[in-house]
Structures are given as C-alpha cells and as structure tokens.
C-alpha cells in the first residue's frame, strides 16, 4: 500500500463521512425529540442540494448559496412538521411514520415536477472571461504586423495584451490574403519577407484552437503549432502554457484562460493532489458540529431542547414552549441537511438528481442508528464511520477483484454487527439523557 493510493481515499472518506454526519444529525435530533423517524429527511437533503446548485448556477458564490439552501430547507422542514407530523402528535407512533414515508414520496415527485427529472449539472465555478473576436485586417501586411507585435508582447511577458487580440483562424486569413497578393505580384520581395514572417509566426504564436460558447461568454482555447488533435483539454492547456513558457503560478495565464475557482483547484501534499473543497468540507462539518454541541450543552435553548427530549409534558409545565422547540429542531436539522446537500453536490461536482435523497438518506439514517439514535455525538461518529468504511470498502474490494460496487454492503454489515452487540448503538445509552 502506497501513500499515493491511501491518501486520496482517506481524503474522500473523511469528506463523505462528514456529509453523512451532517445528515445523520437531523435524523437523530428529530428522533430524540419526537421519537419519530423523519423519512422525509433525505428529501430535505436533496432539496438543499438542488437549491444550492441552482443558486451557484445563477452565479451566487458558495456561502450565499449555502445560506439560500439552508433557508429553503428550514422552511421546508417546519412545513413538513406542520402538515404531516403536528396533527398526529398524540396519535399512535405508527401514524406519523406513515405520513413521513408519504411526505418523502410526495417531495420526491414534487422535486421531479419542479426541477425536472434529468440531472441538473453542477456549474463550472471558474469565471469565464468574455473575449471579443476581432475581424481580420484586410491587408496582409497589417495582419502580420499585428501578429508580430503580439509575438513581441508574448516575449516581453505581456500575455494579457498579446492574447486578448487573438482571433480564430487569423493565420489562415493571413495566409489566404498573402496567396492572393502573391498571385497578383509573384516577385515582390516584400511579400516573400512577409511570408517568412508569417511562417515564423505560425510556429510561435499560440493559435486559437477552440471557441466554445458558454453561458457567460466565450471560452477560448489556444495551442502552439500543429499538434495531434486527439488531446484532452487539459493537455492542450498545458502545451500552450509550456509553449508560452509561463510559470504555473502566473496569474496572467489564469486570467487569460480561465482563473480556476479556488474550489476547483487543488494543492499538493506529499505528492498527492488534494482539492481545496475537501478540507473545506471537513472544516464546515466540524465547525457546525461543534456549534451544535455548544448550543445543546451550554445555551438555554439547548437546555429546553434536552428537556423536551426527556419529557415533553414536564418541560411544558416548566414553561418550555414545546411546539417552538420542535419547530426549532426541524429548522436546525433541515438546515444542516441543506449544508450537507450543497457540500455533497460540491464534492461530486457532477450534478444533482431528484432521486439522490433516497440512498443518501438511508445511509445517513443507518449512521444515526450506528452511533445510537437520539444521540448527536453518536450521529456524528456514525456518519464518519459509515463514510470511511464505505469509501475504503469500495476501494479495497475493487482492489481485491470482488467489485467496489459491494462497498456500501460492507458498511451495512458493520452496522448489523454493531447493532447485534450493542442494540443501542455505539454511543447510545438506555439512560435518560438524550438529544
């Protein structure tokens, strides 16, 4: 086992675990207070991911997008409680369980109708610099002069100025113009010289190889000389970069092409590239967990929550507004699920689908059970464990030829084993202190 193999897996595992923990907390909090498994929680997570991706696609930056997702999900969570659970507070425990399932199915279908059944792609976060494509000068000499002057700028390191004037197919235009002029006057010494300069320019100038229309402008690709057409975009970029001798760190290059968004960039640790978004996920998860822990243990609202979890009637007699506390529980749980949703979408970077809540929801619920349902620290621990085990199992099972597709099954085997030995879960207890 090499470090280069383990490190990316661990990085991934921790992120996945953190996200599961965020969602698991929502299950466990609602259970702690209402003794209800909120099966619609997976759908809240999915809605959060959707709102986040929609906001990011609209050009919002990450924090406002997460805030929007949290707000949306908090309202959604409270509404679900008001519509599906509050009327059944005194009903047998099975009744709200059924409405929870119904709510889950309803929300999934509503999401499909509102947001569509296809995948909603995660936006490319890098800003794209719009680029004006200039018309080629009529006169060959002027054109070649311009190419030459730009070449000078490239040599001087003024990449911005040099590149922003480039346009698609300029070499071809220059060549055709020259050919036409040569046909008229074959012996002109000036034209011979121009031809030479054009040939030189062709070798040296990074030429536009692709112009892609993107939502906020044009993405322009450069390449030097003639190359094999069969290369990935990153290869083309690297080649152009090398041809221009621009150091990797040069912001000029980034500005010219695309300055990668920090969340799309990575940094090197011991020869392994880590995406910035991964530590961001860890940090956000950890901060939220600590904040939640502080709120529950140290604030009066937290005390009220613990009291309601312990005994609703007594808490009410002590002046605690039980319904407000329940609402607050849904607000916090749903907002955390929303953060989890946006982070999950960010981690995948692929896109979100309306069905994504089901599987992740089940896994996060299992994480809550593994840690001991009703126990917040347990949910965090359980989420982390399930994430790490799943990830490592996918990797190792693939390595051993069993098939990584069975990875999640291993996580569930561990869950079953733990529950058999400790029915209350890892940190769960039969004692009264919950929430």
């Amino acid at each position: 086992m090499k470090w280069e193999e383990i490190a990316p897996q661990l990085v991934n595992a921790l992120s996945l675990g953190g996200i599961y923990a965020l969602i698991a907390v929502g299950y466990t909090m609602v259970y702690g207070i209402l003794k209800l498994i909120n099966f619609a929680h997976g759908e809240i997570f999915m809605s959060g991911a959707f709102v986040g991706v929609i906001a990011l696609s609209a050009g919002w930056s990450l924090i406002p997008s997460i805030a929007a997702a949290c707000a949306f999900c908090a309202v959604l969570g409270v509404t679900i409680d008001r519509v599906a659970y509050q009327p059944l507070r005194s009903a047998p425990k099975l009744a709200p369980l059924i409405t929870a399932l119904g709510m889950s199915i309803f929300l999934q279908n509503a999401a499909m109708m509102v947001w569509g059944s296809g995948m909603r792609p995660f936006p490319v976060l890098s800003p794209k610099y719009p680029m004006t494509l200039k018309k080629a000068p009529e006169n060959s000499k002027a054109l070649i002069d311009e190419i030459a002057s730009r070449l000078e700028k490239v040599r001087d390191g003024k990449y911005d100025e040099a590149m922003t004037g480039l346009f698609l197919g300029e070499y071809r235009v220059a060549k055709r113009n020259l050919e036409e002029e040569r046909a008229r006057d074959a012996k002109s010494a000036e034209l011979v010289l121009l031809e030479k300069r054009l040939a030189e320019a062709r070798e040296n100038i990074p030429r536009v190889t692709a112009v892609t229309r993107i939502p906020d402008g044009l993405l322009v690709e450069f390449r030097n000389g003639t190359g094999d057409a069969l290369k990935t975009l990153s290869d083309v970029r690297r080649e152009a970069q090398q041809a221009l001798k621009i150091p990797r760190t040069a912001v000029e290059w980034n500005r010219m092409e695309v300055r990668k968004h920090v969340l799309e960039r990575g940094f090197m640790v011991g020869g392994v590239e880590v995406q910035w978004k991964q530590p961001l996920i860890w940090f956000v998860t950890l901060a939220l967990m600590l904040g939640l822990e502080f709120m529950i243990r140290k604030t009066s609202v937290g005390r009220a929550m613990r009291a309601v979890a312990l005994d609703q009637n007594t808490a009410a007699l002590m002046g605690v507004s039980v319904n407000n506390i329940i609402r607050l529980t849904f607000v916090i749980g749903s907002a955390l699920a929303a953060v989890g949703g946006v982070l999950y979408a960010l981690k995948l970077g692929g896109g979100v689908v309306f069905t994504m809540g089901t599987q992740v929801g089940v896994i996060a619920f299992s994480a809550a059970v593994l840690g001991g349902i009703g126990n917040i620290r347990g949910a965090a621990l359980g989420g982390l464990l399930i994430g790490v085990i799943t990830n490592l199992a996918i990797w190792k099972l693939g390595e051993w030829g069993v098939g990584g597709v069975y990875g999640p099954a291993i996580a569930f085997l561990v869950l079953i084993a733990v529950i058999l030995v400790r029915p209350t879960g890892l940190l769960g207890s039969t004692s009264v202190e919950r929430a």
Partner: protein
Amino acid sequence: MRFTSALLSLALSASAFAGDTVKIGVAGPMTGDQKETGEQLKNGAELAAEHVNKAGGVNGKKIELVWGDDEAKPPQAKVVAEKFANDPDIMLVVGHFNSSCTLAGQTTYDRVGLVEFSPASTNPTVCEKSKWTFRNLYRDDFQGQLLARVAKEILGAKKVCVFFDNDDYGTGLKDSFVGKAKEIGLEVAQVEAYTRDTADFSATLDAFNAKKPDVIFISGIYNSAAAIVRQARSKGMKAQFVGGDGLKDDALIKNAADAAEGLVLTSPFSIEATSEKAVAFRKAYNDKFGRDPGTWAAQVYDAVMQGAVAIKKGGLDRTKILEAMQAMNTKEKGYDGVTGVTWFDKNGDCEKPAFVEIVKDGEFVPHEKQLK
C-alpha cells in the same frame, strides 16, 4: 355462390371498417433519467410516421403510433410489453431502447407473438432468445472489440481501466471490450462496476488514478458517464475517456461541460460519414423540430420505416409480419434507410458498421481516424 361472395365482401368491408389506422407501438424511456433519449425516440418515430402517411400510408391505412414509456426500467418495460401485446390493433413494436428493457419485454412478445424491433439494444444475447426480436444496429461483441482496438490503435493506449454499468448493456459491452483488449495486448489494470444509483464515483476513480491508466473505458449510459468524467477531471485526472454508443446524447456534453471534451466513442450513425439520405433526414428533422437529430432519432426513424415495410407485406397479421421481417435476409432484400442497409440473419441480428466519434468543441464529430 353469389351469397358467399356477398358474405366475403361484407367480411372485407367489415375488416376495413375496423379502423383506418395501423398501430405501431414505440417503447423507450420517455420519462425518467433517460428522457433526453426518449425525446429523440419520439421525434424520430413521429417523423417516420408522417413520411409514411404522406406517401399514402400502409396499404391505404395511416400509421398510428402508440407510446410505451418504460422509464429505462425493466419491470416497467414488462408492463409496457403486456399492454402492447394485449392490444390486438398493435401490429409491431419498435423498441425497447435499453438492452435490459428489450430483454424484459421479450418474454411477453415471444409468448403472444409480436415483433419487437429494437433500434438501440446492443447486448449480444438480445436477438438469440426469441425469433420475434430484431434490431437494426450492431451487437456489443462487435462494438466492444472495436472500442478495444480504438484504444490501442487510435489512442495508442497501453494500460486501460474499465468502469461499467451493472446492467445487460454495460456488462455485455464490458465483456467484449476486456476480451479483445487482452487479446491485442492491452493491460487491463482494473475493472469496476457501478449502478444507476451510484452518484459518488470518487473512491473508484481514485483507485483508477493510482494505476495511471492511459484510457478509462466507460461501459454505460450518458448520465452516469457525465458524472464520471466530471468528477475525474475535477480531481485533475488526465486519462483519456472512451465509451460506447450509450454515451451518445447531447445531455452528456451539457452535463459534463468541458470535461466531456476529447471523449472518444462509437456510434451506429454519423451523418457526415453516411449517405445523402442521412443529410435529407437531418434537414427534414431540423425543419420539423428545429434541431439536429441525434443518433437514436435516426435509428428509430429507420426502424419505424422498416416496420412499415414489413406490415405492408404481411398485412394485418402479426405472424405474417414476422415472416416479412425474416424474409429481409440479404442485403438486396434489406431496407435501405438513413443509417444504411438493414437486413437480418437467422437470429434477427444485423451487420452494420460503427463509427468512431470524438467530442470536440462541445459537439460529437466523426473522428479523423476510422477503423475498418
């Protein structure tokens, strides 16, 4: 005598009175996560029906299309198949799209006796199991072998990893790819499955990346593929991606953004590389729907057209239509359509070429190198 002929004419007029239309069932993923493909199926079939009807229909009757939405799910395909099979007016089914769905519907069509003509299913076993099943494109054993050669001969790969969708299409294509790859001396570093539910491919992609493959072959459908290439590129992976025709949908490019750039894939149809008929089809399609047809629109168009020919020959009799399909067993007797000539061997398979394409500037274009 007079009485008999009167009776006969009465019977004839009665059957003519039974309906002025001939029904063809069209089955595929009209909704669900492959609805983009379903839209192509619908448009292609509609255009074909319009063309047949404009030319006078089938034996004086107009074609009426009946949609069957299988949502790309085998159990739903079974439901659609039962519906079609029990509607006596349906003379032929064009569909299903996914191999797993075609196979799921097959038992029903086979039991009842109704031609199932798939425009897209490429799993090798699809046509072997029932005489009622036909298709108008190549099989995956052919496609997979071709893709292995593409990896080696066009892309110059030495080491490959394979990521496959755990259904009939993905598995079949993967098997033939891996078989051929080993035969021609490619190192197959790792073969991994995923399911339609898989959203997070990180763990497997990291494992692939550690092996430094030249090529990663995705044996699956465009949706998952878009997520896979997107996640791989966001990890900074450099490997060249290669895929089968299941990747060929504009949604791949839309969802993967520039991560799809440079992806190489096979396609049963390439307008630039085929006939004038194809160009005319593109124009007609563009006039009607305001966009260029995808591969599957062309495949379905041809399937409905060819189905109409079979119904013309066989009349309103499912068994006779089967015989008419079976009779198209040489190139001369085959149907010359937009995607080339389709004729069937004894299984109902056909021999048709595959084209190599590449995603360039956000579009599928023919690759400059093609394999014979």
